[in-house]
């Protein structure tokens, strides 16, 4: 079956493409680009993309899909439904499932569940160490063969520098990026929000920015030593951004991602003790948010990743210091990026596509994705930069509703998502 995406504005940074162009899809792949004057095939189904931006499918490098083990929060199917509704064609779930994704059987299971759901592509991230216990290396080679695209002990950062060094050396053998949750727990332990004036005011225990900075320094130095690729997850501090910036300048293989909540909210949002403002790393103060925005603008930040972390309502309806860390994010990320980055003039649409698609594909070595080059996978995200809409938790496709953006208005959205040539989501459709 052929599908023609017609009358859209095609942006594909990997091909330096930024103009009106139709895209023909056939057999799950991009079959051709057709200029405005050229004759399209008569037998293709037509998707009229007038007024829309046609981009390579958005890839979220950092999500939590909770399956196996915590299906009351999310399943791979419900997470993928939320993903495509947010404009993501591919998601990379972290290994902190139960059991931990530290072996090929679980990696394969996750991919199979995604295939059954038939929505987004799922590229699992395997654990660095068995059970993410920081003690023994997980079977990285086996997991890669099963489909894992990176390794991480996200949420439970490897505490021992010697172990991390070995993990980086080993991961390099398999060309696997090491995704690093930078947090020195000896400094942040017991903390529930950013340490600063607001934590003082609210009487909540703070997590100092230094906890992220120190771990980032340690692991960037280890990456320099080992030659491994370190990818700093959910970067949130001025200090760690500076460390990554310097590492890149030095030629160290370092990349990083930022979560939308870290460039749209400050720790002031914790006032009122809404547990939907509790996440790790925490919402930071204005100076850190300013540093993140600057790093998005100057290219230091490679990707926007949601850190989508669904939690069941009863788990969040607890005391602030007892509630779990994390918020949902798949359905609000693109709206936030449009509203806070593009429409405020910080970045243009090309950079938006780079942050959501081109770069994530590059960072996790996802071949023939993050581009619409002829022959690539036909994963596409269609954007309406001017659509005004309101996010409602109640309407979320995620099983969990723990977003701090409930009721927020947005300007700009993903309006259709195509995975493997199949339209899997259409706003209002």
């Amino acid at each position, binding site marked *: 079956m052929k599908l023609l995406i017609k009358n859209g504005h095609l942006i594909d940074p990997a091909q330096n493409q930024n103009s009106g162009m139709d895209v023909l899809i056939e057999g799950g792949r991009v079959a051709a680009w057709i200029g405005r004057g050229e004759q399209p095939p008569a037998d293709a189904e037509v998707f009229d993309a007038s007024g829309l931006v046609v981009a390579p499918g958005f890839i979220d490098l950092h999500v939590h899909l909770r399956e196996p083990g915590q299906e009351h929060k999310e399943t791979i199917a419900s997470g993928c439904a939320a993903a495509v509704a947010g404009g993501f064609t591919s998601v990379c779930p972290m290994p902190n499932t139960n059991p931990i994704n530290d072996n090929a059987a679980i990696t394969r299971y996750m991919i199979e569940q995604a295939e059954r759901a038939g929505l987004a592509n799922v590229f699992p991230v395997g654990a660095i160490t068995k059970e993410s216990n920081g003690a023994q290396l997980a079977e990285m080679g086996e997991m890669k063969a099963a489909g894992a695209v990176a390794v991480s002990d996200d949420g439970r950062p490897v505490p021992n520098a010697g172990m991390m060094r070995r993990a980086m050396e080993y991961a390099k053998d398999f060309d696997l990026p090491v995704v690093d949750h930078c947090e020195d727990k000896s400094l942040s332990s017991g903390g529930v929000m950013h*340490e*600063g*004036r607001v934590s*003082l*005011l*609210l*009487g*909540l*225990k703070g997590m100092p920015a230094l906890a992220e900075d120190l771990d980032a320094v340690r692991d960037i130095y280890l990456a320099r030593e080992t030659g491994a690729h370190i990818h700093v997850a959910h970067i949130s501090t001025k200090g760690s951004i500076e460390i990554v910036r310097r590492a890149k300048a030095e030629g160290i293989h370092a990349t990083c991602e930022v979560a939308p909540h870290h460039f749209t909210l400050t720790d002031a949002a914790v006032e*009122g*003790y809404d547990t939907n403002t509790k996440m790790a790393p925490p919402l930071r103060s204005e100076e850190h948010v300013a540093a993140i925005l600057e790093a998005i603008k100057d290219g230091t930040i490679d990707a926007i990743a949601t850190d989508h972390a669904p939690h069941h309502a*009863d788990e969040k*309806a*607890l*005391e*602030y*210091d*007892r509630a779990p860390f994390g918020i949902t994010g798949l359905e609000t990320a693109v709206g936030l990026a449009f509203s806070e980055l593009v429409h405020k003039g910080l970045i243009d649409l090309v950079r938006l596509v780079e942050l959501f698609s081109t770069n994530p594909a590059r960072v996790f070595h996802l071949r023939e994705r993050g581009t619409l080059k002829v022959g690539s996978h036909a994963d596409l995200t269609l954007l309406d930069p001017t659509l005004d809409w309101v996010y409602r938790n109640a309407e979320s496709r995620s099983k969990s509703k723990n977003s701090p953006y409930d009721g927020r208005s947005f300007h700009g959205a993903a309006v259709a998502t195509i995975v493997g040539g199949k339209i899997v989501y259409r706003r209002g459709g």
Partner: protein
Amino acid sequence: MEKPFRRRDLLGIRDLSAAEITGILNTAENFREINQREIKKVPTLRGKTVINLFFENSTRTRTSFELAAKRLSADAVNISVSSSSVTKGETLVDTALNLDAMQPDCIVVRHGSAGVPHQLAKVSRAAIVNAGDGANEHPTQALLDAMTIREHKGTIEGLEVAILGDILHSRVARSNIHLLTKLGARVRVAGPKTLVPRDFEHLVEKDLTVCPHVEDAIRGADVVMILRIQRERQDSAYFPTLREYSIHYGLTNERLDLARKDAIVLHPGPMNRGIEIASEVADSSRSLILDQVKYGVAVRMAVLYLATGGG
């Protein structure tokens, strides 16, 4: 008389204006006399229900609130929850909704987690009174401290107040700092560096100083407020031993001599005699610790009265 307090809940001192604080204190003055009567009971809150919901043990605060309610003829119910809601298997919000369904007029809540009264206030129809939440606030303690200071100094404006000890974990210190600086006092705090948060002087906009040594804070003070040391802090490596704490940070007569001659000493209790406060100081005429307890009942009568729609 103009109603001094137009809020439904008393969640902390931070959000109150100086006029509101003064209004509560003036209302408490009016209730003080009831506590001196032979028959210590008035019908002011007859038919009202007050639930004392205590997730943390506290004999004196709970008793003080209970007496306050009963002296105003309210029906007081005490609920002590030895464990947090989460270990009980019920969410905090469910706990609040269940109590709320019984139509109380006021829920007095104490909890080891900061912010719980704020969270309950969002879902409860009853007025919520904060009786201490984690390291956040303990507003009625600050109000009774202020009442004690006013009684002995006539005013709070212009006073120099030293607060000493575990500032980091103290909700009493926070509420007092907000209250005292709003009413025009200057506050200095001191304690081991491990127990004084970084940048603490930014807690309020003005009149708060972090002193390097306890002696600097005490020198020339009109009021010296001592905080209770939680003995378990020693095990958390905030300071090496209780002995060392008492030597370097405890309030002794010698240190108190640095304060003004007419300086008064306050302590929220219960005291660790010989650790944060020497017995000779605690038992001296400058110590107003029992006055604090006495005024506590009047302050809580005023708060319950105002929160349940009085005034």
